């Protein structure tokens, strides 16, 4: 579904991504793990159109989307849940969800019901400003907001960051639930353990390069990964 070919990105004066290639098959959960500064976020931000790559290409459903503006990429069916959730604090929960469907002109009621069925907590807080929600609720809102555009592929940048372990488990359950409902997922995580348990395919990124790849289970069993990322 998504093919990244030899992607190179300079960001902030350094070559943050040094020619990586990977693919995300339709219906799968793919994770990119790696330490801080490995280039994971830069990769996602490039796919979403926030940064222009210096080389390589991004192919989505057979079409070249390299260097397109973010709105065009959302229109193609790729949405991103940014790092740190980035919900709009002054907009109500309902407005935050509606703004996720900004480019859509059809009726949103079914999708709102769908999001509320996934996250019943949000329904209770429809009229509350987004900024008054707890961290976990904000993450749910960020995921719900991304779903409102009816994406084919959701990219999530560190969804577990700063959340309590129980909430992290909730979020990963939701990720699997969304995936079962037909949305492909590209996840980047520092919580490698959780990510690899959830993912079908994993890639390990180190200083701008992909150094290892395999199924989630294979990588979880890999001694090198255990030592470097799983702390055991």
């Amino acid at each position, binding site marked *: 579904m998504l093919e990244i070919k030899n992607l190179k990105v300079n960001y902030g004066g350094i070559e943050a991504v040094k020619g990586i290639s990977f693919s995300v098959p339709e219906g799968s959960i793919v994770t990119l793990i790696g330490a801080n500064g490995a280039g994971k976020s830069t990769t996602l931000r490039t796919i979403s159109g926030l940064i222009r790559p210096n080389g390589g290409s991004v192919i989505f459903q057979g079409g070249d989307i390299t260097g397109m503006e973010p709105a065009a990429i959302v229109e193609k069916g790729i949405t991103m849940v940014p790092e740190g959730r980035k919900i709009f*604090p002054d*907009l109500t929960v309902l407005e935050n969800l509606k703004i996720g469907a900004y480019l859509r002109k059809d009726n949103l009621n079914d999708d709102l019901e769908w999001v509320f069925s996934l996250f019943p907590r949000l329904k209770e807080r429809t009229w509350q400003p987004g900024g008054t929600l707890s961290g976990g609720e904000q993450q749910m809102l960020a995921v719900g907001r991304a779903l409102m555009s009816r994406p084919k592929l959701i990219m999530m940048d560190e969804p577990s960051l700063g959340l309590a372990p129980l909430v992290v488990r909730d979020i990963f359950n939701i990720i699997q639930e969304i995936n079962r409902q037909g949305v492909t997922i590209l996840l980047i995580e520092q919580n490698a353990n959780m990510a690899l348990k959830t993912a079908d395919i994993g890639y390990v990124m180190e200083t701008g390069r992909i150094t290892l790849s395999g199924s989630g289970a294979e990588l979880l069993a890999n001694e090198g990964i255990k030592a470097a990322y799983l702390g055991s």
Partner: protein
Amino acid sequence: MAFIEKNLPYILAGISVGGQYALIAIGYTMVYGILRLINFAHGDLFMAAGFMMVYLSATLPLYIAIPLVIILTVILGFLIERVAYKPLRKAPRMSVMISAIGVSYFIQNSAWYITSGLAKQYPTIPVISNSINVWGSTTTVVTVITPILTIILVAALVALIRYTKIGMAMRAVSRDFETSQLMGIRINTVISYTFVIGSFLAAVGSLLYFTNYTTVTPTAGSMPGLKAFVAAVFGGIGSIPGAVLGAFIIGICENIIKGLGWTTFYDAFTFALLIIILIAKPSGLFGEKSTDKV
């Protein structure tokens, strides 16, 4: 009561001028809210609207000239943004500010060139230039219409921002460019809307303001522009209700000072107020409050 009775003409004039400042101040505050830019060219856009009226009304009937002035001012405001600010979107904020100062002088100098620096007679707009008696004091219709029109326009604007999709996008963009883009919002479109609205209000303000004066000069936009800017800072820059309230307070205070016989000092009052606000409450009356939760 005696004070109000004695000063009624000044208070009425103050409310009227306050409304005119408010219409300009909204342009400053909205642009600041989205781009964090003080659009120094805004006062000159207001002056340009004045000259457009002078030239257009010379050849066209008012019912065509007035809408045309509004449309052309909106186009000019839109073009200023596209030509002078949009290419600098990723540049440091200081560069954009310098560009704004450049645009300001460019418009002023163009006006000098076109008019040879001579003050031009502003046309009399019938009906609103007529005299009217309000509670025993004589004033012009424009004095009464300005605050009413201002309130209507502000209410419409607040409704637009609160209840429409583009309004929601404006609130989102003013908070976070990048996340707004991830939602599929085209930032440049939203910014253009902001300039269009600000320019529209400045054009209306210009029609009302210059009706009270007989002439327009190339520097005629500076002082009302600065006053409106002070009003926006006073109200808390970025806040629309703040800018409107600030504008009315400044307009009324200035005119009461005139009524007390200190006409020489009324400009000084406004800028003294600016200094006091910046020292005592830099965020203004309704300054941006942050509800960020990390």
